[in-house]
């Protein structure tokens, strides 16, 4: 188990800074002193402030807007409405599909969801803009809205054939199975709720647009702005040095982004627009509400014979989001017969979006609850049930796993948790008036791969710069790329500075799907290797090089010094060597694309997701895996649930920095505790409005809700998943937490809750 190796590394300062070492965040000092300037905290001369006005109906037409009072309010520079905002061009989607409409209107006349932007006020100060926005009067012609999936008008939705996965004859095998369970599992609309709101500053200089905006995908968003305004891609610069949390929500340029950029163009002044916290619940999509039914047929010894799965997720009236609900269902357990199908249902909401492990998260809630139900149907220990049906290969792709340390995760987690001491019967463990429940569930996330590039510069003082337009939203990109460059080049990590978050740096694809670390460590490793090759090549061949007369075949660089591997001849710091040969810098741009890649393909690779590499490409199926063990305490009188203990064993392959990976895992577990017990977007049925769109009423876990959490790494390097052997970290740990808690609540109370969140009224 690599947990022991980590402890060893922590006590070995020489290894702290290498890949795999527990180096503290290199961006940490800036963040703990307040020096880190986030995107829309830049100071600009002549900055103006914009505030949005949102629709108060969920469906219908804007019939009139009276902006006179707002226009004459102090400090107001402009009131933008659907009639007065400049026309934008349609932009292609994130797959690169061309726009469905030739023009794009970020302020609308036709309202399809509550809170949709209908007007914006720009003023000299924030306070003036807020006050004037309250003076904008909007009249509507309201029509009936479909408020959510349970609305009678919602219907069965649209079949998404691409989601269908079938083998064997699942329905017949289920009908014939001696043991059968079938149940429905629901998850509500949930929100990413990053602490930093969405927002931006837009500034035009002639036909050049600079956008300071928190972004998980600078190149993709720059493409969208370029297309909206009919600019060459190079004319748009996106800057996003730190991101105050994204969780999937900050990868796309959105309607409010277009409003700010258009306002700046129209006024020829820089414009700052930051969504209010309530607007953050309606201006972009959270996780779609989902409904699933899972039917499992099994032998009496617990061996699964068939799984029949049907899923539905909500999407928008004017946009499509598919939350892949069969993603975990189809791979977690071995079964000879399987069927999964999915529909989407249009409701009056902003188009849902990506939230941490879209698809895998609700999918795991269904299958990992259902397997627990099957275990109790048969009187088999839930952990044993999972081992009986362990998938030795990918049951869907019919390929070998690249690595799957899930059995090891079950073993390590059970040992650390003390699972062997559990009594299986519900309501059989208690502490006074508290019912105690122990639950287990597994999780998984695919290894999403892509090509990346990076620039590595060796400077004349021996220091190193790494440049990439990828980003750090807290995962630790600055730190692991510094470790990668330091290790590859043989320089101390404190001599490496990493520059991220500027689209003028080397290009990068989306930071999402837990792919950044694998892609970017590979790209930096390659670029740094090229820089090292050039350095050594110069040392061996440059006429001014002190090493030239050595007639050596190679040299090595260690701790920032160049020397012969056998220790003979000169021993020079990189700085002294650069001075000796009269070089200012050595620069290498490395990428992982095939050499035959055309410029058009490169552009597509970084500005769309169309060239992502399937996780089942070639001979292997690549995924991260985890096993969660959870203890809950349920108050017998009040039905309140507290998570009192979590032990999770996780296989993310090789960890580039275990200290930071553990933080991400725990963060996923904590977001999963929120999902299980607290989080639910509540829609007012009269007006289709989210009524709890703020941090007091949409409840996030607080410090007082969270117990000690133990994470154990059981990963081994996976050479099929990434250049340096890692698999995904950021999304894995949230997958399976909600069912582990639901299973623990069943064990505590005997009550199976299949509808998240598990609130007290569902238990009493």
């Amino acid at each position, binding site marked *: 188990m690599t947990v022991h190796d980590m402890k060893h590394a922590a006590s070995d300062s020489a290894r702290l800074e290498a890949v795999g070492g527990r180096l*503290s*965040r290199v961006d*940490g*000092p*800036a*963040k*703990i*002193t*307040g*020096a*880190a*300037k986030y995107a829309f*905290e830049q*100071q600009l001369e002549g900055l103006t402030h914009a505030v949005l006005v949102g629709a108060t109906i969920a469906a219908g037409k804007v019939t009139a807007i009276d902006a*006179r*009072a707002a226009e004459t*309010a*102090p400090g107001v520079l402009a009131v933008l409405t659907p009639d007065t905002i400049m026309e934008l061009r349609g932009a292609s989607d994130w797959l690169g599909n061309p726009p469905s409409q030739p023009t794009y209107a970020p302020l609308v006349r036709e309202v399809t969801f509550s809170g949709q932007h209908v007007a914006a006020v720009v003023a000299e*100060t*924030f*306070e*003036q803009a807020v*006050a004037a926005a*309250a*003076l904008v*009067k909007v009249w509507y012609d309201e029509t009936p809205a479909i408020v959510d999936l349970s609305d009678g008008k919602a219907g069965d939705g649209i079949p998404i054939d691409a989601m269908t996965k079938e083998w064997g004859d699942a329905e017949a095998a289920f009908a014939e199975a001696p043991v059968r369970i079938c149940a429905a599992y629901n998850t509500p609309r949930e929100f*990413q709720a*990053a*602490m*930093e*709101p969405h927002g931006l500053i837009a500034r035009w200089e002639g036909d050049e647009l600079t956008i300071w905006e928190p972004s998980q995908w600078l190149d993709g968003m720059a493409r969208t702005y370029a297309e909206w305004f009919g600019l060459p891609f190079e004319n748009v610069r996106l800057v996003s040095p*730190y*991101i*105050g*949390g994204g*969780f999937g929500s900050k990868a796309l340029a959105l309607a409010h982004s277009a409003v700010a950029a258009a306002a700046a163009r129209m006024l020829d002044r820089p414009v700052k627009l930051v969504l*209010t*916290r309530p607007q953050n619940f309606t201006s972009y999509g959270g996780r779609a509400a989902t409904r699933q039914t899972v039917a499992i047929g099994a032998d009496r010894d617990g061996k699964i014979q068939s799984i029949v799965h049907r899923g539905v997720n909500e999407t928008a009236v004017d946009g499509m989001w598919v939350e892949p609900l069969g993603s975990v269902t189809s791979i977690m357990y071995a079964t000879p017969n399987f069927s999964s199908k999915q529909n989407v249902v249009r409701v009056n909401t902003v188009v849902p979006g990506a939230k941490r492990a879209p698809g895998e998260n609700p999918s795991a809630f269904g299958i990992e609850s259902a397997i627990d139900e099957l275990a109790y149907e048969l009187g088999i220990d839930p952990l044993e049930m999972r081992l009986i049906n362990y998938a030795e290969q990918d049951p869907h792709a019919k390929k070998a796993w690249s690595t799957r340390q899930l059995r090891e995760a079950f073993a390590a987690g059970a040992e650390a948790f003390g699972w062997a001491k559990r009594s299986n019967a519900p309501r059989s463990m208690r502490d006074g008036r508290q019912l105690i429940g122990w639950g287990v569930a597994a999780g998984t996330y695919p290894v999403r791969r892509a090509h990346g590039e990076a620039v590595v510069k060796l400077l004349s003082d021996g220091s190193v710069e790494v440049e990439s337009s990828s980003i750090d*939203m*807290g995962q*630790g990109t600055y730190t692991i790329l510094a470790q990668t460059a330091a290790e590859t080049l043989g320089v101390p990590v404190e001599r490496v500075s990493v520059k991220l978050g500027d689209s003028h740096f080397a290009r990068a694809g989306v930071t999402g799907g837990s792919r950044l670390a694998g892609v970017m460590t590979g790209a930096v490793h390659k670029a740094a290797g090229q820089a090292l090759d050039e350095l050594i090549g110069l040392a061996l061949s440059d006429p001014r090089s002190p090493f030239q007369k050595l007639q050596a075949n190679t040299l090595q660089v260690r701790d920032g010094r160049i020397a012969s591997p056998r220790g003979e001849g000169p021993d020079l710091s990189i700085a002294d060597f650069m001075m000796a040969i009269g070089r200012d810098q050595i620069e290498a741009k490395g990428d992982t694309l095939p050499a035959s890649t055309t410029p058009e393909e490169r552009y597509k690779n970084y500005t769309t997701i169309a060239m992502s590499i399937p996780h089942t490409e070639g001979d292997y199926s690549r995924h991260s895996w985890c096993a969660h063990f959870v203890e809950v305490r349920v108050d017998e009188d009040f039905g309140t649930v507290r998570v009192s203990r979590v032990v999770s064993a996780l296989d993310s392959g090789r960890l580039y920095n275990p200290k930071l990976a553990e*933080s*991400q895992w*725990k*963060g996923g*577990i*904590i*977001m999963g505790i929120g999902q299980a017990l607290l989080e639910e977007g509540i829609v007012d049925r009269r007006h289709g409005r989210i009524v709890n769109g*703020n*941090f*007091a009423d949409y409840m*996030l*876990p*607080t*410090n*007082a*809700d*969270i117990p*000690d*959490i133990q994470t154990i790494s059981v990963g081994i390097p996976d050479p099929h998943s990434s250049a340096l052997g890692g698999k995904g970290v950021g999304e894995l740990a949230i997958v399976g937490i909600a069912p582990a808690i639901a299973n623990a609540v069943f064990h505590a109370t005997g009550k199976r809750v299949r509808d998240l969140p598990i609130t007290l009224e569902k238990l009493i």
Partner: protein
Amino acid sequence: MNDQVTISPTTLSLNLTINGRTQALEIEPRVTLLDALRERLHLTGTKKGCDQGQCGACTVHVDGERVLACLTLAAQVEGRSITTIEGLAGEDGTLHAVQAAFLEQDAFQCGYCTPGQIMSAVACIREGHAGSDEEIREYMAGNLCRCGAYPHIVAAIRQAAQELRS
């Protein structure tokens, strides 16, 4: 709504003492301490997470007590001593024990709630509310962290409280 509502252009002349320095401001009475810090004085270490007093990201100290800058008008704190995250480290840049412990324990990820967490943590220890992990969790419950750094925040405060006692 009254269409004829007029918004007074009146501004106030204020002297605010922030991190030991007195700064003059000409602002409208409705400007919050948070917006005065971020938009006028460019002290952007204090974060705006909700602007509704619900998340704690804007926590600063006023006369040593933790206060939400988004629910405080700048005009309310004239003549009082305001400390923000930028004023917590020593003149020579030496980190406060809480800052150092946050770094060591990896008590943050994205860093956006972190200044508020740290200001709250310093006050939590000073108030005598860092006696146990349970007490720390309760008295830090007003500072939300969506990255989920809570267990490491508790560890950092436990460590810093011990260091500050000794």
